[in-house]
């Protein structure tokens, strides 16, 4: 069987690249950490990979705004390739800083538009926070969303968040309505029983508790929480997981690898 190849794009300040690599490897893929300068030298190289990941971190120190500089660099120097890649239907994931980058490039929520129409801004608490939260995927969305990344998950999972700028804000009501209508909001912060949370389980004050979204087609997925930090049950605060070994974050990576296979 052909090995699935994953490109983990890194730059100055990327710092979740190793664990993202490990997560994909755990799911049977070959994952490579590639510096953006290397990719810019040979832009076509991107098409040698089946999956593209924008890992977490503080790209370029999050100077100006989180993910902004890397987003501009990708757009200006790799814009055509990345757009083509996205529209080809190959899976793309952006985690935390990577989500911020996807939103600021404009790959989310709509890669055809390829324009920034939402943002991730400062947490309401006005500080960086690292904690575990509950995420809910509504039944309806689970059944109807085209998101390839979130299949086979229980209705409520927990994942850690660690960010200072995670408050999702769409440009206007219309875009928000579209996100809802197209079942693009795949993860919302919630309580354990699925009900509406307050701070701190609502960690940042996101519009409609949005934690993760995908594009209409379902191949591009961005989220603030860190699934790569929960691939083993051991990583959960109470060591919960499935098959007494794995964490629910693993399923997210496995979904993409299976999809490409």
């Amino acid at each position, binding site marked *: 069987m052909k090995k699935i190849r994953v490109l983990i794009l*890194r730059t*100055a*300040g*990327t*710092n*979740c690249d*190793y*664990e993202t*690599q*490990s997560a994909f490897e755990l799911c049977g893929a070959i994952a490579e950490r590639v*510096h953006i*300068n*290397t990719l810019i030298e040979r832009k076509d190289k991107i098409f040698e990979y089946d999956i593209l990941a924008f890992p*977490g*971190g*503080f790209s*370029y*120190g*999050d100077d100006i705004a989180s993910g902004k500089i890397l987003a501009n660099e990708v757009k200006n120097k790799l814009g055509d390739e990345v757009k083509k890649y996205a529209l080809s239907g190959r899976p793309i994931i952006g985690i935390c800083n990577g989500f911020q980058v996807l939103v600021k490039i404009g790959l989310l929520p709509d890669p055809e538009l390829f324009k920034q129409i939402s943002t991730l801004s400062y947490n309401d608490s006005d*500080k*960086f*926070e*690292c*904690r*575990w*939260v*509950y995420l809910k995927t509504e039944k309806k969305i689970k059944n109807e969303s085209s998101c390839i990344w979130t299949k086979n998950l229980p209705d409520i999972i*927990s994942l*850690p968040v*660690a960010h200072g700028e995670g408050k999702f804000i769409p440009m206007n009501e219309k875009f928000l309505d579209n996100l809802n209508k197209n079942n693009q909001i795949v993860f919302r912060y919630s309580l*354990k029983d699925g009900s509406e949370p307050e701070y701190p*389980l609502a960690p940042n004050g996101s519009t409609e508790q949005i934690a993760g979204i995908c594009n209409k087609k379902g191949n591009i997925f961005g989220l603030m929480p*860190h699934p*790569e*930090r*929960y*691939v*083993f049950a*051991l*990583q959960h*605060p*109470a060591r919960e997981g499935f098959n007494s070994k794995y964490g629910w974050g693993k399923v997210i990576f496995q979904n993409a690898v299976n999809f490409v296979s």
Partner: protein
Amino acid sequence: MKCTARCETIKILNLSDEELFELSRKNVLSMSLEEMRVIQNYFKKLKREPTDVEIETIAQTWSEHCKHKTLTGAVEYTEEKDGEKTKRTYNNLLGETIFKASVELDKPWCLSIFKDNAGIIEFDSENGVAFKVETHNHPSALEPYGGSATGVGGVIRDILGVGLGAKPLASTDVFCFGDPDIEISKVPEGVHHPKRIIKGVVSGVRDYGNRIGIPTVNGTVYFDDGYISNPLVYCGTMGIIPKNKIDKKIESGDLVLVVGGKTGRDGIHGATFSSIQLDKESDVSAVQIGNPIIEKKVLDTMIKARDLNLYRAVTDCGAGGLSSAVGELGEKTGAVVYLDKVPLKYNGLCPWEIWISEAQERMVFAVPPRNIEKIIEIFEKENVEAVCIGEFTDDKKLTLMYDNDIVASMDMEFLHNGVPKPIKSAFYKMKEEKVQKPVEMSSFEVSNSLNSLLADLNICSKEWIVRQYDHEVQGQTVIKPLQGNNIEISGPGDAAVIFPYTVVKGTKKGIVLSNGLNPQYGKINPYNMAASAIEESLRNAVAVGADIRRISILDNFCWGNPNHPEILGSLVQAMEACYDISKAFEVPFISGKDSLHNEYSINGKKYSIPSTLLISAMGIIENVENTVTMSLKKDGNKIFVLGITRNELGGSVFSKIRNIEGGIVPGVYHRESKDIMEKIYSAMSENLIEACHDCSEGGIVVAVSEMAFSANKGVKVDIDAIKIYSYLEERCRSGREMTPAEILFSESNGRFIVEVEPDNEEKFKKILDGSIFSEVGYVSDDKEVIFESKKNNVKIRQNSEILLNSWRNTINW
């Protein structure tokens, strides 16, 4: 010697003693008269005046900060006990205490101790783990944000600069501050208010640590008004390194490559200024400016270059800047450096400023000429500046050039070994400790004290700080700083465990990090403070699952001015305890650091910090799946107290809040304690323990409450079942029984609270056979935390949610 316009000659050959001393003071050289005289004589022999570059180089190299003259120097020590004086002379205080213990223990798994930027122990057959804790006190007092941020950056570079470079895996940060609620009028002139310092320091650690992507997983915050004008900021980092990358070597002809940040005027005189007392004139320009992203880029690229074997040695630019880094690497060979080639942030720096600037994020490499192009390419490919500034020679001299002029030329031997060894006197008078008057309290008063203790600054939740740090980046933090059974509620963990699965593929092993610190004890008994700090650090590590046979420790002494015999005397006491306890537990020291002169002077008044010893422990865990957290797991499980409770309230948090006079400082009874630690590990290896918590500040009552409220459960404890030691025992002799309050609040060392399932009880007891322990109660489903003594008719009943709120509302800004 010819000098450029930018380099001056300093006339010292004909100076009088007074003039020599004034020169040292005026230029922040921090050198003693004796040292100035040695320099004068050296240049008399050379028959010339020194340049400013030379004087500054010597000052940095000889500074207390770099040379640790007090700790490695001679001490005439006098001890007074019951009116009798005994004397002892140390030729090398460190060498005859801490270092001696490690040499005598001679553990084969200690791979590199006390010689590199960090200590290294064995992780597995392929890898070692390195650990270092530094202090960044003076900078954090003047500029809290920049001071703590560069403290983090600095210690990370120690890990990058150990051997041929380790990959950092986790950080630990310990702070000592004044009371954040103190009235501003009580803060000495020229000092920042504690709350401002705290917020600045926490933000600095957060922004540096989070950005560079190294999880801050462990720490302590300690409050005492003795730290108002002189806060302490300890920053530590642990990293992993292949065993075949531990040795450095330099060959003549290797090139000097400086990598990373540019050099600027920030951090001039950092090394020397941290070796003297602070006052309101202290210069903020001595504090460096940090940039974590530059350091991250250096980390990313240098590990690549390391694995391609492109260099022979590396070290970081820390205190003393290039002067220390090149000086250390070239000590045996000699080196020539072209200062005009050093990349600068801006123009206008004099040669001596370039040479001693402590600008951040710089590493110095020794690169064989054949590899130079390749290594520079690796750095430049990821936008990291790498410039060749000189080479290692074979003339055993340090030669500095600027614009083709020689601006310094000195023998390495003089520079590194020329510093005269001071002889300092130390004096310590043993204080008599007496058991306090019986502490009789009603059930109601004990209940109130429990809530006050949980809310006390030194016990309360530090969640406000912990959650600002990304303690889970890298995904390897499997025992977290805050622990609970769900994600809503958590209590204070004893230690953190890192599971380095992304670096060592397929491993089951983990690395535990913990610490011990209790300056309050030191005010009464510095020996037992040090002993307790070591024991506490071990206890914390053992509580999560560490094997006492595979733990190593670091010392960090922060003391006042060592020129006062009493202050140095308490240091001698603490160091003797380090020797004794390290030997007794067979736990070696692998590295350490001291920061003396923590004193602030204003209007003729001097404020000195309490003598403070931080012990940081690092251990190897065979199987991370066997580790446990501190929160109670299941209703009906049994609660055991392991270890003996003695009447030891001296220096306790309880004594402080109740203003109790007297009391005996907790001692360390190593046989009992080591035995229990070994047995806990055996029991955990068989998965017989559900939860385990170290019993320290606040005593049993606080430890049990924390285990209960972090699980949102209840617990019932029979006070009469707790094993207490005979009241006739030598040290704690009182001629009376302990009262229930004394049993509950005593801070005796060597104790653990352990939760065991009824089914495992027999096996557990069998393992513990021969040790002192007792079953004291059980986990209940009603959320009521109950402590009862039928004998004394005392019953404390508290709701665990109320206790949780007491604990977590103190620091919530």
